[in-house]
């Protein structure tokens, strides 16, 4: 269970966060949500697909780390074996909460840094400090705050990206057929990707719209990212000693 509280330098003065990557700290996930603004970094290492949010049915882009639940092929020996960790995972144990504030008589919503106190990374003994001795933010915390800001804007932009993909009918469901070195076959269902035939048929006006929004580049990065499925298969074979 999560225990999410707004972060402050009095109550949480002595908190530390363990930054090691391992299953112990919940990194054994097979995918995490991503957004177009980080696609350039994500597509270097991970395949990007789309999935539906089980609570709303809405599509979101994701970075894939494995082929089944709890399988993260980038995780071993308490390390993450890739130079970039997607922001929605890297942010742990922080998140953004909104708070209504009154500024000069005007009701406003302010984004506040929150922390999940029950996250197993959070402790008082080891890891990165959140606050400096006299109460100022540690560089680590400032970085985390920047990351959350980036996620906030990135996810909002990602929703618009999805709207355009649906508007132009550019998503289709995909079945990944995985054959390992021992000839064992696995099928992965339930994901979606860019419909390249529809993309090829798109008229120049629509392409211009997507280009101006920066989404044409995002679309091609999704397509390009699929070569990383081979990387995943390679890692899977290696993990099984095949």
């Amino acid at each position, binding site marked *: 269970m999560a225990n999410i509280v707004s972060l402050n330098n009095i109550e949480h003065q002595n908190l530390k966060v363990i930054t090691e990557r391992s299953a112990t700290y919940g990194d054994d996930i097979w995918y995490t949500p991503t957004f177009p603004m980080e696609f350039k970094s994500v597509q270097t290492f991970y395949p990007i697909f789309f999935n539906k949010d089980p609570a*709303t*049915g809405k*599509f979101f882009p994701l970075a894939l780390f494995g082929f089944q639940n709890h399988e993260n092929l980038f995780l071993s020996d308490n390390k993450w074996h890739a130079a970039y960790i997607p922001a929605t995972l890297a942010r742990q144990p922080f998140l953004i909460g909104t708070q209504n504030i009154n500024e000069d008589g005007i009701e406003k919503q302010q984004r506040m840094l929150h922390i999940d106190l029950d996250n197993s990374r959070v402790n008082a003994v080891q890891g990165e400090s959140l606050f400096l001795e006299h109460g100022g933010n540690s560089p680590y915390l400032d970085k985390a705050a920047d990351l959350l800001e980036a996620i906030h804007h990135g996810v909002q932009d990602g929703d618009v990206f999805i709207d355009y993909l649906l508007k132009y009918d550019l998503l*289709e469901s995909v079945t990944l057929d995985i054959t390992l070195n021992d000839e064992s076959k696995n099928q992965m269902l339930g994901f979606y990707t860019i419909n390249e035939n529809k993309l090829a048929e798109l008229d120049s006006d629509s392409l211009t719209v997507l280009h101006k929004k920066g989404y044409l580049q995002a679309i091609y990065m999704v397509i390009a990212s699929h070569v990383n499925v081979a990387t995943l298969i390679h890692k899977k074979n290696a993990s099984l000693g095949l």
Partner: protein
Amino acid sequence: MNRPLKKIVIVGGGSAGWLTAGVIAAEHQTNTEDGIEITLIESADIATIGVGEGTWPSMRSTLQKMGISETEFLTECDASFKQGSKFSQWNKESDSNVKNADQYYHPFTLPIGNNKIDVVPFWQNLVNKVPFADAVCAQSHLSHRHLAPKQITTTEYTGITNYGYHLDAGKFGAFLKRHCTTKLGVKHIIDHVELVNSAKNGDIASVKTKIHGDIQGDLFIDCTGTTSLLLAKHFNVPFISKKHILFNDSAMAVHVPYPSDDSDIASFTQSTAQNAGWIWDIGLPSRRGVGYTYSSAHSTDELAEKTLRQYLTSSMGEAAKTVSIRKLSINPGHREKMWHKNCIAIGMSAGFIEPLEASALALIEFSAKMVSEQLPANRQTMDIIAKRFNDKLLCHWQQLIDFLKLHYVLSHRDDSAYWRDNRTQETIPETLQEQLDLWQYQTPSRYDIPYTEELFPAASFQYILYGMGFITQERQQLKRAEQTKALEALFSDNAERVNMLLSALPTNRVLINKIKEFGLSKI
């Protein structure tokens, strides 16, 4: 005679008129220059009756083919998901000591192993342990928790379990009208048909309207409801009454509000037997639709009203005494044929029967689909197709009547003349009696139905028979060890699937609210 069929005139709106218009228009490109032209004439004077709040799963493909978004349909027609029918007190009159003692399900999902392996003998050994529908299908288990057949991530028109809809018939007609006229190119004329003009060969040449004058067509579709303006009034095609088999000729209907906005929406049409008929209870997102259909020979209107108000008291309390009730008449039966010359009757103009298995919209869909897919190229081929259409529809009517009657003849109720009369030999069609004789020794199978695209598969007969406690004599020599193993696996797979569904599916209310907020995805 060889002139291509180009123009169809539909007389009458309502669900029948607009469904037929939509099905044909979508397939024959009415919204293009070269498509078949369709004009629907609807009288402003005649209110549509708005019967039929339950559909079959077939409605999904019907709507999808018309290019309708399921999200829009669900939202605008106040529709929810129907997974079958639940029958209470059909076998025995109510026993207040034992709650739910007498109830069974006719779910939309076929029994496990259907067509490949006969599960009935194996199940019969379990009779006292598990009701038939619970043992052979997962769907009845979802009823208690009012669960939906799908999740918010499931695409439009796709189900995790099989489903149709409960809908507001009035809103449905208006919704279809808007879709047909704005998207599918159907011409809409609001006018009153006063006269039918005949051609030399006896066909309908045109209909004369009050304001728009004569409207010509190659094919006329009569969707005028029980008036049956073209087929009955003009062509005098005789009516075949079925009242001697199915007695219910009256109905009283009422709209029932929910106690709160988050009240559960039932997944099954609830049918509760009474001493002169049965009460339907249908859950829509915004209200319930409840009605009593009964035999006027076995109950006065006053008694029927009392019965209905009594039923409503359990959910409405004191308000049941004052809620306004609408009275309807049913003339059970159908026309001798539905297609005569260049005129086809679809909907209540062709026939009507009590809504026990919600067959009204299904028959409209079937008729519209067959007309559309078999649309005669010209007048020359029309009579051949008309004959086939009539043969098919008459098969459907006969099976429908047999199937509905089956619900009554199996009953052990002895609390009124209505139930006893329903079991007298002269009220049971020979075709049904023959089946009943057979089913004493063998399970309903596909061999019982000597034609394709049947209205009810053998599985439906199994659900009713064994739901009502009918026993088929077991043949000992059929018990083979490997078969028993396969059957055990099927039954345990079903139990596993039930658990999976119970944990994965949201309630109807939760899903409907989510659909209103987020919509269902098309992919």
